[in-house]
Structure formats: structure tokens, C-alpha cells
């Protein structure tokens, strides 16, 4: 069984962290991952930086630009991660835009992920339809889970369809917007969280975008299985460095 599915069966609310690979320094990637696992994070999204990250707010844009300037590429990332399964056992997901994966070759990318022990991919700009028709078979061949996004604007019908083709979790984008930290959620988000909870979907839901602290984590996981913190973590990392990771994580729960 894929590590993601195993983790989703655990009887607890899951905390996931996103960070940009190769940031703050090119060779920080492995140390950040190891520190996150030791701090009690349940799974990790490793951001593969892209020059034009359409769905990201300023924090992740800046960390991506810096990581690219540091020399991060798909090839470099795979080299950094080649022995990661000797030290890390929690699920690892690569999150990145489609173009770098397409240039690497989608099949070669999935194959490499499987060799290293990457469990899933999140590709915000790969359309559901395109994945379903052209890439699903490749992902399945290598046992890589593709994680789909839904938003407050996604129709019930489309959510049902996405649920039917999800074999891991559904990434619930908390609000209409790009990535970025928020201090609290308003009524609109609560209504949306309740609406999705009431749909009794097959795939567990993990909420991301706008989660930044203990309060937003608690609100998000009231109904959902877990939550993902990205920008707030990257902000903390750039201000306080890798040594601050345990404190940051313990402040969330």
C-alpha cells in the first residue's frame, strides 16, 4: 500500500508541510525534510520550483525564484533525494507545475519518483481531464498518487467526478485565491468546509492555502482529515532558519 494511503488510515488529524526545494540554500532540501519528520509532521510536500508559478502568492514566488537562482532543477532535486528513504519514512509528495515535468518527460519523472520513494504528485496546472486521458496509466504503472485540487467554486458534480478518480486525498483549496498565509477563516470558508463534509466523499480531504497557525489548523481540520501549511512555513524558514523548525511545528499542535 502507498505510504499516503497508510497515513490517511491513521486515527488522527494530519499535519502536512510544504516547502520549496533548494531553499534557503540549494543543499538544505534533505535537512529540512529530516527535521520536519523528527518534529512530528505527518507528510511533506516538496516544492519543485518553477519560473512562473501562477497559483502562488508572493512568499512561494520568492522562494521559487531564489531556489532557481541557487541552481535547483528536477535533476538536482532527484539527486538530493536519492537516499532519502534511508532516513525518512513519512509520505513524500512533489508539488510542482507541469512544464518542468513535461520537459523531463512525464514517464521518466514518475519512474524516478518511484525509484526514490516519492509517493505522490500535485500538479496544479495539469487539468483533470488531461491527466485522466493521457497520464493516469503512467502514474498507476509506477504507483504514484496524483492529488487533485478543489476550490469553493468547484461544482458538486465536478467534485463527485474528482472524488471518483482520486486514489489518495483531495486537496481542498481553502478559499478563492493564490497561496498565502491567513490568520483566520471567515464564514465563507466555514460554509464551504461544511458543504464538502456533508458530501461524504470517498477520498479524505486535506485543506491547504491560508493555513498558518494553531487556530487555522484547528478550524481546517474540524471536518477535514488534515491540513497543509506552506507560505507560513516558508516565511518562518527564511526568517529563522532550519533550527527553528521544531518550534514552528510544535506551535501548530
Amino acid at each position: 500500500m502507498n505510504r499516503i494511503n497508510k497515513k490517511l488510515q491513521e486515527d488522527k488529524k494530519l499535519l502536512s508541510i510544504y516547502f520549496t526545494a533548494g531553499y534557503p540554500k540549494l543543499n538544505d532540501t534533505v535537512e529540512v525534510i529530516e527535521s520536519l519528520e523528527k518534529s512530528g509532521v505527518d507528510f511533506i510536500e516538496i516544492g519543485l520550483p518553477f519560473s512562473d508559478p501562477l497559483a502562488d502568492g508572493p512568499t512561494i514566488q520568492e522562494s521559487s525564484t531564489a531556489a532557481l537562482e541557487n541552481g535547483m532543477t528536477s535533476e538536482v532535486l532527484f539527486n538530493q533525494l536519492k537516499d532519502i528513504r534511508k532516513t525518512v519514512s513519512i509520505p513524500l509528495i512533489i508539488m510542482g507545475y507541469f512544464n518542468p515535468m513535461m520537459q523531463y518527460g512525464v514517464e521518466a519523472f514518475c519512474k524516478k519518483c518511484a525509484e526514490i520513494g516519492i509517493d505522490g504528485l500535485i500538479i496544479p496546472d495539469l487539468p483533470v481531464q488531461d491527466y485522466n486521458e493521457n497520464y493516469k496509466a503512467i502514474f498507476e504503472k509506477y504507483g504514484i498518487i496524483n492529488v487533485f485540487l478543489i476550490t469553493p467554486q468547484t461544482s458538486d458534480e465536478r467534485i463527485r467526478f474528482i472524488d471518483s478518480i482520486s486514489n489518495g486525498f483531495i486537496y481542498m483549496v481553502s478559499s478563492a485565491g493564490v497561496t498565502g498565509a491567513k490568520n483566520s477563516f471567515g464564514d465563507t470558508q466555514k460554509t464551504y468546509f461544511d458543504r464538502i463534509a456533508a458530501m461524504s466523499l470517498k477520498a479524505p480531504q486535506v485543506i491547504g492555502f491560508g493555513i498558518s497557525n494553531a487556530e487555522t489548523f484547528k478550524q481546517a481540520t474540524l471536518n477535514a482529515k488534515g491540513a497543509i501549511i506552506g507560505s507560513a512555513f516558508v516565511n518562518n524558514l527564511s526568517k529563522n532558519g532550519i533550527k527553528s523548525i521544531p518550534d514552528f511545528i510544535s506551535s501548530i499542535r
Partner: protein
Amino acid sequence: MSYFVDENGYYGQFGGAYIPEMLYPNVEELRQNYLKIMQEDSFKKEFDELLKEYVGRPTPLYFAKRLSEKYNTKIYLKREDLCHTGAHKVNNTIGQILMAKRLGKNRIIAETGAGQHGVATATVCALMGLECIVYMGEIDIARQAPNVARMKMLGATVIPALSGSRTLKDATNEAIRDWINNPVDTHYIIGSVVGPHPYPDMVARFQSVISEEIKWQLKEKEGKENPDYVIACVGGGSNAAGAFYHYLDDKEVGLIAVEAAGLGVDSGESAATSVLGNEGVIHGSKTLLMQTKDGQIIEPYSISAGLDYPGVGPLHAHLCESKRAEFISITDDEAMNAGLELCELEGIIPAIESSHALAVFNSKKFKKDDVVVLNLSGRGDKDLNTYIKYFKL
């Protein structure tokens, strides 16, 4: 082979809608409605009237006698430079503002490079009384001050794009992020035949008035609708899409797309996507794209701010791969000299984008009785500073 978009939004292998799920409802709403709305009688009537009374269409198809003599062929200039606001861009913004109104949107966003599309968008927003926000790279704001002032006078808010290389592609990223943040009340007026389906097709249809007019105008002047060649410059490719549109299936009409070679195709400072690009995804569309081996997008260069886009519209990628159109690259120097030559021979100061198309006469030989239509996409007023600096005027 078809050169028009298929039902899935592709031109051959290019096109599609590679957008984050956050944009799906907006783009899907547009996809389901754009053809229906464009076919409504009331829409057509309003669009045609505005093009006639407000934009000043039809634009002349002018026989350039002295230019023709010099190159020993028959050259007609399609005078899009005479459109209100100074370029063909307004054909599209008129169409899209009417579309936005029918979709019930009250907030308009746009990206702009040199500022021509920004001005054309601010213009139609003023005309319709809609809120207008234009994203423009911080670097472009500094080098295109007159157009920034125009947009402000027209009531638009100009927001600097501070990310990445702070030019057109980053302004486009910022506009897309704005649309993600404002999914319900906002329409995004893309300025070229780029972006996710249905934008490339919708913009091409709005610009197709150019070739529609060329057909009947040429019939009047030459007794035939089809020229031997149509020449147009390509950045994203909206004026070329409009000039080629009604000739795509007429194989006897040669289509020549002119890209900016910048300092030279091999100089590292170029925007010749058809030569330097390969298949990739940018701004929601699979197309030819200038990128690193790792798939990071490369910042292009051209002296012309309207041609320095790292991709081309998917229609043009298809025309290039299928060899339906011939792609020619023209350097800064070749374009600047061709621009000056048009001033001297015909008394017309062209936009530097259009000057690239004009430079083709120096690199490609046409027959004496060939009828060649060149789409003069814009006027050179906006480029005076660049001309002054280049020619030390």
C-alpha cells in the same frame, strides 16, 4: 488538415487549457458561452457598430506605390495603425468588453507589455463605465511612461508586476493571479491569441475582421479576394491571427509570420520562438516556448516591446509545425531600418512591431506581379523614444 481550433481547444497538438483548478469555473463559463454570445444578433450589431463608429473601421487597404516600386512587387498595407488607440489591439478589447458585459462581469483586468493592449482595454472600460485594472511589469512601466499616463487618464489602475523578470510574462502571471483571487465578478481581457482555450480562438475571431476586410477590399482593387502573400509580425500573434484568419484554408495564399530575432537568433538576446522554442506550457496553453532544458521559461528580448513574448499563440505553433506559414526572424537593426524606410517612402511612421514585418522585403524576393498584403498593425507614435535613441534624431 484543419487550422482552426478543434472541439477540445487544440490546434493540432497545441492549445488546451493548462490552468489550475481555481480558474476552471471562470474559463469553463467563458468556453460554454463565447460562441453563443458572439453569434447573437444583438452582439454582432453592437460589435460592428462600435468597430465602425468608434474604432474607425474599415481601415484602408492602401496600395504602397513607392514601396512597391522599390521592391518591384505589388504591396498593399492594411492600415490597422489608423484604428482608434493606434493599433489593431482595440478590435479585440471591443469584442471582449461586450462579452464581459453579457457575462455580467463588472470588473476588468488585463496584462500589458508595451502598454498598447493596456491602453486599448482602459479605453473600452471608460467607454462602458467598467472598473479597469491593468498589470504591467515594473520595468515596462519605467520604459513606457506615456502609455502608463494614457491608461491613468482613461481611469485605469495600473499595478506594477514586481515578480520574476518584471516584464510582460510576469504581468500576465499577476493578471492570472488576480483572476484566481476574484473568480466571480471579474473578466480577464487577454490581449493576444494566447492563454487557455477559448482565449486563442476568441481573440482570433475578434481580430478576424482584418482579413474579412482585406478580402473585399482586394476584390475591389485587384478583382480577386486572395493575395499571393499575407505578411504579419508575431509576438503572441493576434494581428497575424486576424490577418491570416480567412486565408487559413486557402492554400494558394502564402502566410508569412515575422518574429523578432532581437540582436540575432543565436545571440542569446532574441524572441524568435519558432527557432529557439520547443513544446511547453505557458499561461495555460501548450505551445512553442522559449525555455531551459529544465523547463524554466526564458526571458526573451526584442527592441520591440510588443514582440518580446517567450511563446507564440497555439494557432501559430500549429501553423509553424505544419509549415502552413513561413516563419522569418528579423533583427532589431533590420526592423529599425525598414521602419525608417516606410517613413521616407510612404510618409507613414510604423510601430516597431510592424517594422519587423516590413523588413521581410529585404530578405525575401517577391515576383513582380505578386500581390503582397502586409498588416501594418500599429503606428509608431509610442515608439518615438526608441526611434530617437536608435537614429540619434
